[in-house]
């Protein structure tokens, strides 16, 4: 789950990290008030959106007086950045940057742990740095049982700073940021750039945090910051019912149990010349109500001309699925053709329940895929 920069800054500040006071503004008048409160020779106006590349899109601007401030705030508010409409800007005083650094904690699949990523190439797109000059990125694997002791934070700090006073400050910053990362079950806690100002202070100028969806249940305050897009609302709604949904736009709706099989089903539809309408994984365990909900969700997409149900029963029992389907289609009247392929635990019982119904039954995945594409074309 993503949060806005200003929300991440507040979290950082609450952990004692060096973040300047900033104002979040929903209109130009607020921005002007913020400008006067800050009383600074130069301020920055920053779009708050759940996507990267704000700078390139013109969503971050310096203002040296009220006139500029008004112009920028007016331009940025309402701006469309990669499909996100800006409804809030952050106003903060500009600092005199002597040098910029990159710092983040992130979950690392390879080491199966959290890593601290550092670079003296701050303020840039870190993926670009990683790609072009990987030697400029330092990765320190954190042992979750001991966290970030002084010595490890200090080792990290020496990778960015040479002056012992700055090393000490950075040591403390790395420890606080790790605590925040762990306390909130983050999957990313990034400061880019962390800067050394010309006055010799170390400050977090931008902050980005994302959180582990699986852990949100124990962080209600963070979960409350969720601001879904329309599409995400649908995905969220699906999730609350126990399945995963991603909208894709084609004509063949898919309902599959298991994420891998769901992806393979999409890929197969494409392989046979069709277009999948969505990714829909009804998950591990199942019950009839869940299947009903899944069908409702599928059919709410008006592009869907055919539904392909591909179930391989492990923890999900085929008879439960069949019963759910029958119940669902008792409730939802539709003429859309339904292709069903059902194998695995209790598959015999499941198939028997579906015999003699209007469903198109298929034996193999290939057969199901071909049939769905065929029906979508002829429909």
């Amino acid at each position, binding site marked *: 789950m993503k949060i806005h920069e200003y929300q991440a800054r507040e979290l950082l500040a609450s952990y004692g990290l060096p973040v300047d006071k900033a104002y979040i503004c929903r209109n130009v008048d607020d921005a002007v008030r913020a400008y006067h409160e800050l009383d600074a020779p130069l301020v920055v106006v920053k779009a708050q959106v759940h996507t990267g590349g704000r700078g390139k899109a013109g969503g971050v601007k310096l203002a040296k007086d009220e006139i500029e401030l008004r112009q920028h705030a007016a331009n940025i508010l309402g701006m469309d950045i990669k499909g996100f409409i800006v409804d809030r800007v952050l106003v903060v005083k500009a600092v005199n940057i002597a040098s910029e650094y990159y710092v983040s904690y992130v*979950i690392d*699949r*390879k080491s*199966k*742990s*959290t890593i601290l990523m550092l670079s003296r190439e701050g303020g840039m797109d870190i*993926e670009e740095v990683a790609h072009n000059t990987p030697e400029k990125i330092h990765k320190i694997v954190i*042992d*979750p*049982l001991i966290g970030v002791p002084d010595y490890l934070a200090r080792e990290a700090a020496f990778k960015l700073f040479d002056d012992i006073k700055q090393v000490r400050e950075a040591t403390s910053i790395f420890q606080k940021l790790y605590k925040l990362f*762990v306390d909130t*079950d983050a*999957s990313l806690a990034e400061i880019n750039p962390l800067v050394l100002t010309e006055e010799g202070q170390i400050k977090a100028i931008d902050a980005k945090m994302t959180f*582990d*969806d*699986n*852990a949100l*249940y*124990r962080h209600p305050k963070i979960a409350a910051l969720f601001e879904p897009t329309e599409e995400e609302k649908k995905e969220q709604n699906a999730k609350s019912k126990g399945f*995963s949904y*991603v909208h*894709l736009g084609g004509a063949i709706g898919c309902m*599959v*149990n*298991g*994420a*891998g*099989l*769901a*992806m*393979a089903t*999409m*890929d*197969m*539809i*494409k*392989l046979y010349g069709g277009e*999948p309408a969505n*990714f829909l*994984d009804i*998950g*591990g*365990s199942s019950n009839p109500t869940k299947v009903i909900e899944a069908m409702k969700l599928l059919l709410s997409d008006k592009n869907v001309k055919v539904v392909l149900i591909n*179930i*391989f*029963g*492990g*923890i999900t029992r085929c008879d439960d699925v069949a019963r759910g389907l029958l119940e669902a289609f008792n409730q939802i009247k539709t003429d859309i053709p339904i292709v069903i392929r059902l*194998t*695995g*635990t209790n*598959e015999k019982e499941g198939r028997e329940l579906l015999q003699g119904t209007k469903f198109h039954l298929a034996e*193999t*995945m*290939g057969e199901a895929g071909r049939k769905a594409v065929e029906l979508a074309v002829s429909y």
Partner: protein
Amino acid sequence: MSILIDKNTRLIVQGITGRDGGFHTVKMKAYGTNIVGGTSPGKAGENVEGIPVFNTVRDAMEETEANTSVIFVPAPFAKDAMMEAADAGVKLIICITEGVPTLDVVEAYRYIKIKGANLIGPNCPGLISPDKSMVGIMPTMIFKQGSTGVISRSGTLTYEVVYNLTSNGMGQSTAVGVGGDPIVGLYYQELLEMFQNDPETDSIALIGEIGGDAEERAAEYIKKHVTKPVAVFIAGQQAPPGKQMGHAGAIISSGSGTAAEKIAAFEAVGVPVAKEPSQIPDLLKSRL
């Protein structure tokens, strides 16, 4: 032979009195898995299908000399269950539970390693050595004893591949679902090594998906260390970037972790990649 589990497996079911735990205990037992005990705090003295229930894994270990445990507890308790098993001396821990917070897995995994044990999962279907032992939620009827090793990040997709293998007369030595989360226990490299060393395995099917770079590392490993034929299927060619495809681990981040990259990595080292799961048997047969 087979890897990880066989007739010597002595299994404990953690969360045996729960709905899923109970259901799959019946299935595993019916398949012939040697389930020696189960745990459910406060229910010591009871039994499930004749299997004795204990309050703690340590009690179960003392009474049963188990060597393997499978976890069916709800996600908020999975970390504790994994650590409990490791601390009690279980050497192979299979966590079926899905939705376990990543940092919980990070911590449990580290502890399990310190204790010298192995973890499979979480968010996995478990594993099966056909006709010997099944630990997890695998639909046993599709499996057949044989000599193809199967490694997969996905549950149902594994079944799909196995279904095709079996239909083509290719039985399995062991099939392992490693789990779909970003951080899970045993992975491609360790399992490829085990299959390479297992005399009863003559070929390996590897099923990957988008997210991370484990497939790329597996390709490197195969190039260096695996002499047996390997065939691969990668799911998620149609997945849009930045969207989590069901599995917490199945996400293309900042343009990396795509199916195309993974397919290219395998092809670069001469490992054939199937266009659909049903092609795997032929790809392996042609190389045996």
